């Protein structure tokens, strides 16, 4: 453990101690520190803005209710994200089956910024909805939250090897889905940095 990480953990422990004493400032700081992560995971997994907002609040309520159970020897973020993942799973189980994963993504701000990239991201979100829950979780945590394999394994309570396997399958299924939806044909239009493959010298 390096010095910076050790300092961060000590800071987390102090923050949690203050929260447990009911300090409003500490409570607000802890929420601010992890709100984006929690909300992003909820939004990617639930695919619905309002659901993500509701579940985020619920996650923090649960976090603070069980903050005294947190293992001080482990970092706080995986513990909080594990709670978020579990709440999302419960929410998905309780949600009606006919509710599409990306039904609620059309928030006004997003609509105003709609462009080709937005359409691609929408297709990506739609493709994520087709994945198995575990695969989607791993993909979001790795590619959206940029968490290392070890932390994802900690959150999901699975070995690192399993996480890598799930991520591999998630990517493969996503690529197949996106290819079927014409991403390869639109390559030159939206991604100018991709070299012209047809002009690659043949070996």
């Amino acid at each position, binding site marked *: 453990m390096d010095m910076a990480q050790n300092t961060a953990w000590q800071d987390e422990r102090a923050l949690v101690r203050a929260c447990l004493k*009911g300090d*409003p400032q500490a*409570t*607000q*700081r802890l*929420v*601010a520190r992890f*709100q*984006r992560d929690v*909300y*992003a995971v909820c*939004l*990617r997994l639930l695919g619905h*803005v309002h659901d*993500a*907002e509701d579940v*985020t*609040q619920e996650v*923090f*309520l649960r976090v*603070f*209710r069980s903050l005294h159970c947190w293992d001080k020897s482990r970092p706080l973020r995986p513990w909080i994200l594990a709670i978020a993942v579990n709440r999302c799973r419960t929410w998905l189980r309780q949600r009606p089956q006919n509710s599409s994963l990306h039904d609620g993504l059309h928030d006004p*701000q997003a609509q105003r910024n709609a462009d080709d*990239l937005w359409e*691609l*991201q929408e297709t*990506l979100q739609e493709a994520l909805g087709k994945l198995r829950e575990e695969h989607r979780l791993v993909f979001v945590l790795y*590619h*959206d939250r940029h968490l290392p394999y070890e932390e994802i394994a900690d959150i999901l309570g699975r070995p690192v090897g399993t996480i890598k396997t799930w*991520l*591999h399958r998630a*990517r*493969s299924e*996503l*690529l197949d889905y*996106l*290819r079927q939806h014409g*991403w*390869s044909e*639109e*390559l030159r239009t*939206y*991604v100018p*940095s*991709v070299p012209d*493959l047809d002009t*690659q*010298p*043949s*070996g």
Partner: protein
Amino acid sequence: MCRVFRTWTHNLLDNPWAEPPEALSQHMAICDECRARWAVARRLAEVLQAWPEPEPAASPRSIAERVLADRRERQQARMRNMLAASLVLAVLAWFGLSALQEPQPEVPSYRVAIQLTPTITSTEVATANQPSTNKLEHRLPDVRIAQAQPGEAISDSTAYSVQELAYWFMPESVRRSVEDMVEVVSPVITSDSASDTAVSLSDVVPVNWGNIEQLWHPLRDVSQNSLRLFRSIVPTWSQEPNS
């Protein structure tokens, strides 16, 4: 899927800005599938890089306020539960202590009174049915014991004769003798009580009063001895004034 590209798909997604190695480029020149997948993977990497950071609508402050409100509610609920539990415990403790302190059912403290009634003389019985030679001169004290309040008269229905009580102080062998005698006498008494007509005992059963007297003497002696024993056991009773 072409297996050549499988590994490179994931390498590309792990490091989207890395250029494909020469070997892969040469392979993609002749493999349409790998070229298409590489294009999709590259594009996915681009999109992921541009994936917008979701912006939560709720402010940290609003969530923190809700958290603190929830904490207050839970503390109040916990206090209410503790208060309710304390009340229940207090009520249970009160009931328990009340049960312990509750006076037991009042036992009437009857005093035992002993009344010496006029004794039954066997002579009277004997003179009615037997010649004077068979008179039984022995007078048996008829002591009656009853539970009675001070000053309360003892009725015959509630009193027990000392002989009845003393009977159970007799040795078992003597009691057997008494029971044997009762077996001899009881047919006579039964016949007498069952009949309304004035039938003398001698008419029913020819009683050999000499034998009865032989039986009666030891019984009398034993009764008196038992009575003495009884009085020695309960001396205070015998000293109670007649009510």
